[in-house]
């Protein structure tokens, strides 16, 4: 059985149907890509899968458990983490503290009102390990709000990683990055995919086709094609949309 399964998700806002019927599944230790044109419902799909929105119909299962309608907090605690396309960081905290605050070890002592978090050295070590992975160890003491755009992108992934997830959702991790930044993110994700199950929304086809084990193409609120990158290259749907350049 797949680690994560979404079955016939339907979501509308007012009279606008954004997700018609989405059925997806993500296998353990695989990297799955979600692509599609602008306005296809990719981010809404992500938001439904990660608990930000409740679907109007359909169900979501994670690790054999029905998580439909659970809050983001409950879903995060089950080992599902996500990054955001529009960055969501704790801007007035240092890079290190952004990661520290997201650690499960800190979350568990969140009701402690007496202990000094500054003396939680094991947590700081864990946080440094995460920063090391995303290449921000040298920036540990800098304020998150003062980081460069590329560094903030990396920290966005770092905060998501800090929760020690089983399944990691990345929403356009290369949005706004140049070729060099994109290459760095690709390298990072290539490393992460050895240990983690990852789902990525991405615009950059070359990026996605290079990394993904499987790709779902979403259009008109539905999955119109799925398969390995090799299979999709020959798919007429995909060719007719915006993948022509890869053929």
């Amino acid at each position, binding site marked *: 059985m797949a680690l994560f399964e979404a079955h016939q998700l339907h979501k509308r806002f007012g009279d606008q149907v954004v997700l018609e019927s989405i059925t997806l599944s993500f296998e353990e230790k695989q990297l799955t890509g979600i692509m599609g044109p602008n306005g296809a419902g990719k981010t809404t799909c992500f938001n439904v899968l*990660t608990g*930000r929105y409740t679907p109007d119909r359909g169900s979501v299962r994670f690790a054999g458990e029905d998580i439909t309608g659970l*809050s*983001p*907090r409950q879903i*995060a*605690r089950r080992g599902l*983490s*996500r990054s*955001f396309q529009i960055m*969501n*960081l*704790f*801007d*007035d*905290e*240092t890079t*290190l*503290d952004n990661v520290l*605050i*997201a650690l*499960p070890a*800190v*979350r568990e*002592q*969140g*009701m*402690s*009102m*007496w*202990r*000094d*978090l*500054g*003396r*939680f*050295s094991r947590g*700081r070590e864990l946080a*440094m390990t995460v920063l090391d992975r995303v290449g921000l160890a040298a920036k*540990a*003491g*800098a*304020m998150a709000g003062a980081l460069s755009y590329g560094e903030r992108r990396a920290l966005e992934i770092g*905060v*998501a990683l*800090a*929760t020690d997830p089983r399944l990691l959702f990345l929403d356009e991790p290369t949005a706004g990055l140049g070729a060099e930044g994109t290459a760095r993110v690709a390298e990072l994700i290539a490393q992460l995919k050895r240990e983690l199950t990852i789902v990525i929304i991405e615009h950059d086809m070359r990026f996605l086709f290079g990394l993904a084990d499987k790709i779902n193409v979403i259009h008109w609120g539905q999955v119109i094609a799925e398969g390995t990158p090799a299979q999709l290259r020959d798919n007429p749907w995909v060719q007719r949309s915006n993948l022509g350049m890869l053929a």
Partner: protein
Amino acid sequence: MLSTTRHAPIAPLPLLLTVAALASTPLWLSQVGLYQYLALEIMIWMLFALGHNLLLGYGGLPSFGHGAYFGIGAYAFGLLQLRGGAGLLTGLLGAVLAAAVAGALVGLFISHRRGIYYALLTIAFGQLAWFVAGKWHTVTGGEDGLLNIKRPDLSLGVVDISLKSNEAFFYFALVVFALVLMALWRLVHSPFGRILRAIKQNEMRAAFVGHPVWLYKWLAFMLSTSVAGLAGALFAMAQQSAYPNVMSLHNSGFVVMMVLIGGGLVSFWGPVIGALVFILTRDLLGAYTETWLLWYGLLFILVVLFQPDGVAGAWQSWRARCAARKPTPPQPNATLATPKET
């Protein structure tokens, strides 16, 4: 290296300075033409403002109805004493508990909000409490309030210490103040305090990394109202009465103005500075003109326009400028200190 700079000292310098300065007031206050009661009142307002800032500065949650909990503390202390014959510590504890329960109940209705909706709801609940205090004659004494609240003796087992004089009561209140100040300082550096601050900065992200955001906001409100209740109980002792005016929108606004002028948004010590400035302005300027609040209001406008981070913010940026001017740059790790420490 990283781990040492971030430790929060148990008793940081501003804490020692504040407590020492307050403790010395009986020695010189009357010499400069002021009176001991003033220091007492300043300290009570500092306490109230510190509690308020836990919510505003650390939680990013604006309460414009905090006077209600200050008042609930004052009335609870009075009622426990007048109706229940409660002593000093029972009265104070009861007042804190009453304000905490009120905060817990109101918190149920507001903790899913933030921003303007949060502010409006706190005003609504604050006005409700004020109205009840003014109208429920049989319990609160109506517009007159509760009169003849005593300052009970502090009994330490072997000796009973009378707190009737302003000096004696001042020292007792100073001990309470110092203990709460230390506890709040610990609190804002604890995992709870740091996660609360993160929630202020990005509530959505905090939820997505698994923090129970609602619970934190609810607890922050309750803790804040508890401190307000304690301050209110001390105020009832100081004034030897409790009256509806302490619950008014006025009083709720004053504490916000203290926190902002002092710089509570950028510093733990902002409320301490702000309460001092406010009460001193009231008394010194008030001696010259009935319209002191007009001038204070203008000062408030200027601060919001030109120095929105308040006195503490001005101090921090001055220090940053000094550091930048030095030929040898400061240790890069100096920036690791949380902005709330100075």
